[in-house]
């Protein structure tokens, strides 16, 4: 009888693991330290770039006044709703076109044509149609995030290993079983790549939309600060966007490792 072997984690391995956890933070920490030192020593004028400490103080002040949390939550709301609508439509279209040749012939070339229009070029049209209220910004985010999810769902479904589908047929799976047991799990890694890409597009679109036409949100806050020459808040907003981008990437990654656990398992023994 063969038994699986679990190897003990040695001290050396443990050391490597902790080093691997620290390494990604090394460069940001060095950059921030260098930035702070340059500001303190006067190499960097505060009219060009305020010091990290000044930005942090500004952040604390705006958090205490409630301005930052208010704008942050409205931006998060727009981003999430836009992604859910756009991603949902992208997934449904990708699913329908991926599963049926007829639907793919009917829809795909039109979708590809629409996809090639830069979605930010639609801003004037959307403002004319929907004004500058919430629906305008949510629509823009939805249009931007729809295509990455669509393309990746479509290709994910189309590139499922035909051998596995044949195996499913030989086991007499129903169409429903075939989708849930074989096609969807096989396409899932590709679909998640689409969602991760869509998250990036989501923030970019929202920044532009809020900068051009809004009376709230992080983009508006940055634009407003620019009018008052408030460098600290401008930099703070940029940092907030970077942090939001990183957080959404981490969320997407943890979804991946949760749903695709099987991809991260190595051979335990020979």
């Amino acid at each position: 009888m063969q038994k699986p072997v679990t190897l003990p984690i040695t001290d050396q391995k443990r050391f490597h693991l902790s080093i691997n956890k620290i390494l990604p933070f090394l460069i940001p920490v060095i950059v921030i330290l260098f930035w702070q030192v340059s500001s303190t020593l006067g190499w960097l004028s505060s009219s060009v770039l305020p010091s990290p400490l000044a930005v942090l103080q500004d952040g604390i002040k705006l958090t205490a006044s409630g301005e930052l949390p208010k704008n942050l939550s409205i931006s998060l709301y727009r981003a999430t709703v836009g992604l859910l609508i756009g991603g949902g439509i992208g997934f449904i279209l990708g699913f329908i076109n991926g599963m049926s040749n007829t639907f793919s012939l009917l829809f795909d070339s039109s979708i590809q044509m629409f996809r090639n229009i830069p979605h930010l070029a639609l801003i004037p049209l959307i403002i004319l149609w929907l004004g500058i209220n919430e629906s305008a910004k949510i629509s823009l985010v939805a249009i931007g995030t729809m295509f990455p999810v669509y393309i990746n769902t479509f290709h994910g479904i189309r590139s499922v290993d035909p051998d596995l589908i044949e195996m499913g047929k030989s086991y007499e799976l129903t169409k429903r079983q075939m989708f849930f047991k074989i096609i969807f799990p096989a396409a899932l890694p590709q679909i998640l790549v689409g969602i991760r890409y869509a998250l990036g597009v989501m923030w970019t679109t929202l920044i532009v939309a809020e900068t051009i036409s809004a009376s709230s949100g992080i983009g508006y806050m940055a634009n407003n600060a620019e009018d008052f020459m408030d460098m600290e808040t401008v930099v703070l907003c940029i940092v907030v966007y970077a942090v939001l981008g990183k957080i959404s990437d981490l969320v997407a990654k943890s979804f991946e490792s949760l749903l695709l656990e099987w991809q991260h398992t190595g051979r335990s023994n020979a």
Partner: protein
Amino acid sequence: MNDSMISIKNVNKIYNNQTTALHDVSLDIKQGEFIALVGMSGGGKSTLLRLIAGLEKPSSGNVTINSTDSKSLMRVMFQEDRLLPWMSVLDNLSFGSKDKNTKAHALELLELVELSDYADHYPTQLSGGQKQRIALARALMTDPKILLLDEPLGALDALTRRKMQDLILDICQKQNLTTILVTHDVEEAARMADRIIVMKNSTNSYEENCPKNRNAGQIGIVADRVLGEILEENELQKQTA
């Protein structure tokens, strides 16, 4: 013939109206018989197996399975393990089965293929030989009466291959399965089969009945004879080309 489990009558298979994969194949396979299909690549071995499995339809002629519930009584094991990488070993065994006692049965079969401790592992954590044993266990899940083996041992090393041959033989004999093995390896055919069928020119042109309880010498003799038949075909093809 009435006592045959699988009866193939004048079967032709032509792809795209031009490539003949099978030409006028007629064959009767008895219940509990172990058949090996050998021959050169492109000789129609795998096509015949796929027709029997119902994965493809013949262009003309009939493949009849003499059983009431033909499909679930028949399982195919392919050269690639075709395990679903996102399912654990246990789920891979259970996914095609509608039975309530599925899990217990799956664990029984894992014990049979000597991999009980791997029930919760993913296929990526297993070696090639282990994966093929899981694929064999999966094929046995629905208690099939017919086992179709499409070069399942082709990618394994010699030692693992020999162990798998013994395991398959043992299971087929104990469960009295009707088995069809497609293989490139004439010695494997001579070791395992009751009857070897050589596919030539897209048809079954030569048959060799193997002696019961054969020893290594007899296996060698049968393998040589079968190989001779295949080589003769190869020479003929070279001359016509």
